[in-house]
């Protein structure tokens, strides 16, 4: 007689009524949290779509039939039309193409400055928080001083005396913004390094570098991502101010800020030239700011009530 009954240790235990689990187990990754949060907020959906569109449009800028820097005086100040969606500027250049190329510069500067800022800030923050002691005190004094410096003033001075260009701009922007990132990452590291799993891996003989990179870094990613999103916004904003003052990207290349600088001279009779690039800055920065706040409520639920 065949019997499929399988006997194991459990078979001899008393039968019990199965109890329903009281606690619901969440299997959620960071990205699922973020996705859920974005979906629940129509503004955030709009921000994501707008950013995607603007980034793709700027990447595809070379597809435009016009050269962004070629002068064509005969066609200057054309009104917006099908051939020229934004019209043409004072040298007859297609304004739409220039805005796309300008967007490339603005976004590239924004992202690179954010990247450098995050790299410097996180490294110093983790280093200072993990090692602690005298070094921590020294580094934090240094950070405090950087936070207290009037950054915009010094940026203006630096940019007006250094050779203008994209690299200078990126380095100057990140030089004055790493301090707040270092502050955040240091605080997070300090609380993480007392956790059991870090102590456990330390007792198992893991080196400090391994612990910092493999255990601490992934766990402070949340605040770092939030800082990154807000960092792009502020970098684009500052870049546009510097370019507007004529201290950013050099002629004939353009960024949104320097296009506004050019438009300022014609503001009373060609106001639309000033409206377009500014609108692009406004919407891009707004999107990054909204995204940053949404990310914060997804990744740092403790802080947000």
């Amino acid at each position, binding site marked *: 007689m065949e019997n499929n009954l399988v006997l194991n240790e459990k078979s001899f235990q008393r039968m019990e009524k199965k109890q329903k689990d009281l606690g619901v187990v969440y299997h959620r990754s960071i990205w699922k949290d973020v996705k859920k949060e974005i979906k629940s907020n129509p503004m955030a959906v709009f921000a994501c779509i707008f950013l995607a569109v603007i980034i793709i449009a700027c990447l595809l800028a070379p597809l435009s039939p016009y050269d962004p820097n070629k002068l064509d005086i005969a066609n200057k100040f054309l009104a917006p039309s099908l051939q020229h969606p934004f019209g043409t500027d004072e040298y007859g250049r297609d304004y739409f193409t220039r805005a796309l190329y300008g967007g490339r510069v603005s976004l590239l500067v924004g992202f690179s400055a954010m990247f450098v800022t995050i790299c410097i800030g996180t490294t110093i923050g983790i280093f200072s928080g993990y090692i602690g002691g005298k070094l921590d005190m020294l580094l934090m004094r240094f950070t405090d001083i950087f936070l207290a410096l009037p950054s915009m003033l010094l940026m203006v001075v630096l940019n007006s005396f250094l050779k203008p260009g994209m690299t200078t701009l990126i380095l100057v922007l990140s030089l004055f913004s790493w301090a707040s990132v270092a502050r955040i990452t240091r605080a997070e590291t300090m609380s993480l390094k007392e956790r059991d799993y870090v102590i456990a891996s330390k007792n198992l003989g893991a080196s400090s570098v391994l612990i910092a990179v493999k255990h601490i870094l992934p766990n402070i990613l949340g605040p770092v991502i939030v800082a990154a999103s807000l960092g792009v916004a502020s970098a684009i904003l500052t870049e546009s101010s510097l370019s507007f003052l004529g201290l950013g990207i050099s002629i004939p290349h353009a960024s949104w800020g320097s296009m*506004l600088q050019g438009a300022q001279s014609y503001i*009373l009779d060609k106001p639309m030239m000033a409206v377009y690039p500014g609108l692009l800055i406004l919407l891009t920065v707004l999107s990054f700011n909204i995204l940053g706040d949404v990310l914060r409520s997804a990744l740092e639920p403790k802080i947000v009530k």
Partner: protein
Amino acid sequence: MLKYCLKKAGQVAIVMLLISFFSFAIIDLAPGDISSMYITEDMTEEEKAIVIEKLGLDKSMPEQYLAWLGEALKGNFGVSLSYKTPVMPMLTKRLPSTILLMGTSLAVSLALSIPLGLIAGYKKNTWIDNAISGFAYFGMSIPSFYFGMLMIILFTATLHLLPSSGMHSVGVNTPIDTLMHMIMPVMTMALSSMASKVRYVRANTIGQLSEEYVLAAKAKGTSPVKILFKHVLKNTLLPIITIVGMNMASLVCGSFIIESVFGWPGIGSFAMEAIGKRDYTIIMAYIMLSGFILVMGNFVADILYSFADPRIKRGIDVANGK
């Protein structure tokens, strides 16, 4: 308490020293020779040497810096390279108009942002809150110069209501005229500094409304307006002191950009002109002056805050072992 003040004052001095050293180093390292503005072709070698010695360019950078610092501490910021007159009187002549602009916009932004933040916090998650928060986002994300340009397009180019630049119309010198010129720059400056304040007051109001004293006041039948403006306002105002101190940075730098947009005859547009001319004595004096305004703003805010909030004062005294 005194110890705390002294410590903060020490920090102010350190930051000022660092600012001056940074800027001096940048200007010194910059390409281009300052002496070329003074030396002409027909000078003899001896005359050239005298000019260089007079400018202090024969010395090393630290020596130059110390010499400059010694004079600056006495209030002497040297002679402008392009105007050939002492720098300080030129700056102090333009300072009042900048302070007028900064002070007015600070007042306007405070007067608008505190009620807005309170209302947004009280009406949390309603359309009113959404509108106010949206407005704050807008103010946070718009470049101030762009907002200024939009104002010019709207009020000058289209509606012909307000003058677009300067402080006075030619030949007119009435307070009304100055006021008309002030409206746009003040609004522009106020907007950018309002955003952070509105968000802060809103968050704070939400926190305070869940406190028990609000519940007690409600139970006694106090009207919402009274609760908001009499009880909650007092408790949200404290952090505003710090925010205002931090806002000094955006005001100082804002005045720099906004003065250029509106052609306001203050120290910001003057410094912008000097940067174009590489007039390093004016630039140094401007950096020190605006850096001083900024750092002092933070300093005063810190001190005021510790006086206004006894908890902080007690914390400091405990830390000092009293």
